[in-house]
């Protein structure tokens, strides 16, 4: 709705556009002036907010390319269309970039002249008092101490001296004119506003640059595994456009032990929720080894690189022998937990290319705490290792590893394979508890030796993070100054003992009136004290009642 009104606004300024003989330069100048108006900045902000929304409704490649593919497969032409208009890459799309680039340009065009103006303002004297101070939003008038006619001139000057001193103490910049003091404060408000907008620019630029010069990679580590930081060690690696992957910092990381606990006491939906993930790791860099505990919110930082714990699961250790009794496969196999299942039911495959006779493959499910549900199905009722159980089917034939096309290590292409069957011709079901062995129909065996745990880590470098943090802090500080420092002008004028105090807010300031009132009261008290002192010297006690200060008259509020 706001957009509509905004558009209407833009439309209503059209007549100005179609003025004749603007010429190309004129057009450019006009466009620039439009772009740097507050109104256009405002419209761009609203458009930016709206443009950001589709990224939360549709799957995005930067988050989950798999889900994007699924979406494309199930949505045909509609999906294709959305892809053409970059709806799956919203935040790097042409249209999204165009909006924020326009906003940035608008910002620059706005900040530069304002900085220049502010620079001037900061160095010029506060402006003189306007003729009619009574029009000001904060206004007080009162009679200062009355002296004799000849001393009044000096009394007035003394009064202005006092007023100037007091305003200075309140943080005003002041200038003394013949019959009044002019004062201004709150330059920091504008400074803050400029800092805020400039810091926003810097933050946006930093974000863009950071993604060019950093990198992010993933790796799975089973207990006992050591990761050496080089390109081949990564399961996946995404460098920024200008990242030099030959210069990966040199370090090693070993997963010594991983320990997870799950809640076995809480009722309802909280039962089985994870409570702690502690990975004990040893890092080695520059010849120094250090032990760390890597946790979800406690990355390990080594050699300018961050290592973050992003996932974990089980890796059943399985030994496979072929018909000749040779061990052809042995060791932990990473099984991937089903994300939605609190019981960590995990799926995995095992490829055995080197068996005598034919290649073998196994597809299986691992249940950390196997139980039968009410339908008699095997499920995992808890994520901890209470009753580990491995269920697999076996295949023989060609794994398709040799034709050169890259394969996922987590799936088997079973098209060219035949499923193993038992004696009665039914599909073979391998079901094992730790320590158990099952013979295979054509000879050979599968043994479930035990279970290891593994972790998934993100390893990443972003050289611009420090700058980003600095600009974020500048944004916050600038904003605080710009919203809460009152910018205000004040004038104190006196004529024949009749004093006027006026205040004018520049920008939002709920305290203008108060400021005028307080200053008037203070000045009145001060002069009263002075004259009370003097009076005491001459005729003591006479002016006691006047010590409360000369009468402070509140100005009539009806202006004009």
């Amino acid at each position, binding site marked *: 709705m*706001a957009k509509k009104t905004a558009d209407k606004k833009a439309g209503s300024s059209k007549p100005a556009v179609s003025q004749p003989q603007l010429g190309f330069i004129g057009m450019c100048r006009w466009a620039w002036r439009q772009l740097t108006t*507050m109104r256009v900045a405002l419209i761009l902000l609203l458009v930016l907010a709206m443009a950001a929304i589709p990224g939360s409704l549709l799957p995005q490649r930067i988050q989950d390319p798999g889900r994007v593919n699924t979406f494309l497969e199930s949505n045909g032409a509609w999906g294709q269309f959305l892809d053409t208009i970059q709806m799956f890459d919203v935040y790097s799309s042409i249209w999204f970039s165009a909006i924020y680039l326009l906003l940035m340009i608008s910002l620059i065009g706005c900040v530069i002249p304002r900085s220049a103006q502010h620079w001037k303002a900061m160095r010029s004297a506060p402006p003189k008092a306007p003729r009619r101070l009574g029009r000001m939003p904060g206004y007080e008038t009162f009679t200062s101490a009355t002296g004799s006619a000849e001393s009044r001139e000096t009394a007035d000057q003394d009064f202005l001296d006092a007023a100037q001193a007091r305003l200075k103490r309140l943080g005003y910049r002041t200038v003394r004119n013949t019959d009044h003091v002019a004062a201004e404060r709150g330059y920091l408000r504008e400074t803050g506003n400029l800092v805020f907008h400039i810091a926003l620019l810097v933050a946006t630029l930093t974000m863009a640059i950071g993604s060019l010069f950093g990198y*992010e990679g993933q790796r799975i580590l089973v207990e006992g595994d050591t990761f050496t930081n080089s390109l081949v060690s990564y399961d996946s690696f995404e460098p920024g456009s200008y990242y030099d992957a030959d210069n990966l910092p040199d370090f090693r990381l070993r997963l010594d032990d991983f320990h997870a606990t799950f809640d076995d006491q809480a009722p309802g939906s909280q039962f089985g929720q994870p409570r702690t*993930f502690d990975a004990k790791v040893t890092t080695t860099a520059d010849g120094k080894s250090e032990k760390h505990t890597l946790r979800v*919110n406690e990355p390990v930082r080594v050699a300018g690189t961050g290592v*973050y714990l992003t996932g974990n699961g089980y890796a059943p250790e399985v030994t496979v022998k072929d018909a000749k009794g040779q061990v052809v496969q042995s060791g932990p196999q990473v099984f991937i937990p089903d994300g939605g299942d609190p019981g960590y039911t995990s799926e995995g495959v095992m490829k055995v290319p080197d068996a005598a006779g034919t290649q073998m493959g196994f597809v299986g499910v691992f249940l950390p705490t196997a139980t039968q549900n009410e339908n008699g199905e095997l499920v995992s009722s808890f994520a901890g290792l209470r009753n580990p159980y491995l269920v697999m089917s076996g295949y023989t034939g060609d794994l398709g590893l040799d034709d050169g096309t890259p394969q996922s290590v987590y799936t088997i292409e079973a098209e060219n394979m035949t499923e193993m069957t038992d004696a009665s011709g039914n599909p073979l079901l391998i079901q094992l508890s730790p320590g158990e062995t099952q013979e295979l129909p054509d000879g050979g065996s599968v043994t479930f030796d035990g279970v290891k745990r593994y972790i998934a880590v993100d390893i990443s470098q*972003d050289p611009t993070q420090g700058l980003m943090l600095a600009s974020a802090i500048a944004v916050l500080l600038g904003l605080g100054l710009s919203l809460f420092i009152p910018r205000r002008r004040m004038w104190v004028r006196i004529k024949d003992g009749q004093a006027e105090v006026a205040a004018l807010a520049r920008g939002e300031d709920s305290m203008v009136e108060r400021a005028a009132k307080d200053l008037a009261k203070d000045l009145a008290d001060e002069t009263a004290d002075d004259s009370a002192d003097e009076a005491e010297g001459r005729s003591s006690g006479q002016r006691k009642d006047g010590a409360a200060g000369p009468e402070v008259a509140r100005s009539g509020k009806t202006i*004009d």
Partner: protein
Amino acid sequence: MDVNTDLAMWSNQLIISAMIVYAVAMIFYAFDLFGGRELKQSEAGAASAAKPSNVRRTNRKTTTALLDPPQTDASVETTTGSGRDKPRRGARIGTSLLVLAVILHAAAVLTRALSVMRVPWGNMMEYVLTATAITVIVFLIVNVKKDIRYLGTIVAGGVLLCLGLAITVFYTPAAKLIPALDSYWIAIHVPIAILSTSLLYISAILAVFQILKSSQENKDPKWLRFMRRMPASIDLERFSYTIAAVGFITWTFTLIAGAIWAEVAWSRYWGWDSKEIWTFVVWVIYAAYLHARATRGWGPTKVAVLNLIGIATVIFNFTVVNMYFNGLHSYSGL
């Protein structure tokens, strides 16, 4: 995993008791707001009390908005009191009950926290429980500075509704945190987010009142008679803005602290996760709101509508994004 179930049960009981007191407080506030007998008796007084604000408004046209004298305190007293000599008994009882309710409410939050020995905002139910308590506390604190008891009906009613949702739709048994939330950042990022939500909510209901009041000032339809005793719309606007400005700063802090936490937890400070997207959208909308205020051609009512769009995105960010969107922020506990 020792959860003190007795304390957790106490907490639930306290929520129910607080809700009952909130309901009664809301009724008393509603009597104050809609006037009933008092309004009729003092209609003449109210009408005359409304006048000065009209006079002031015409005066204001000669100056720019920024030059306006606020003069709110005085106008609140004269225009909200229905008849200067009539004490607003409904509002007074409402406020007393609200204080009682928030004590029960705070006790519910405290017992919940003690039952699990951690911060009481580890899932949606706890977030709502704490956020509503903070909202009432913010409301009461603001009230010390400035009489905004006319908002009482909506504050108490909103809190009642949210607590009702908390113990039904959002209900989550007391338990420890999941590792993803187990960080000291939860004690920095989340309470400031809660505070922002409370501030922006109060700013938004002020914006609603501002819109109603300005309609009453211009057309004075019958169904808006009760608005006659409100402060002038220009004062409501300014107050709504001041609170939104504070809320915007705390929201900016929330966003920055969230980004720092994201770096610690997920290896990047910004990744356009659905929660991040909506936090950004909220931020940009309130930035637009602040801009609109300083933009010529944007009248106070249009600006107030932006404020309402802002609170709509805040609520969307909390409810729909948490419950239905895919993302890393899967802490709803549902």
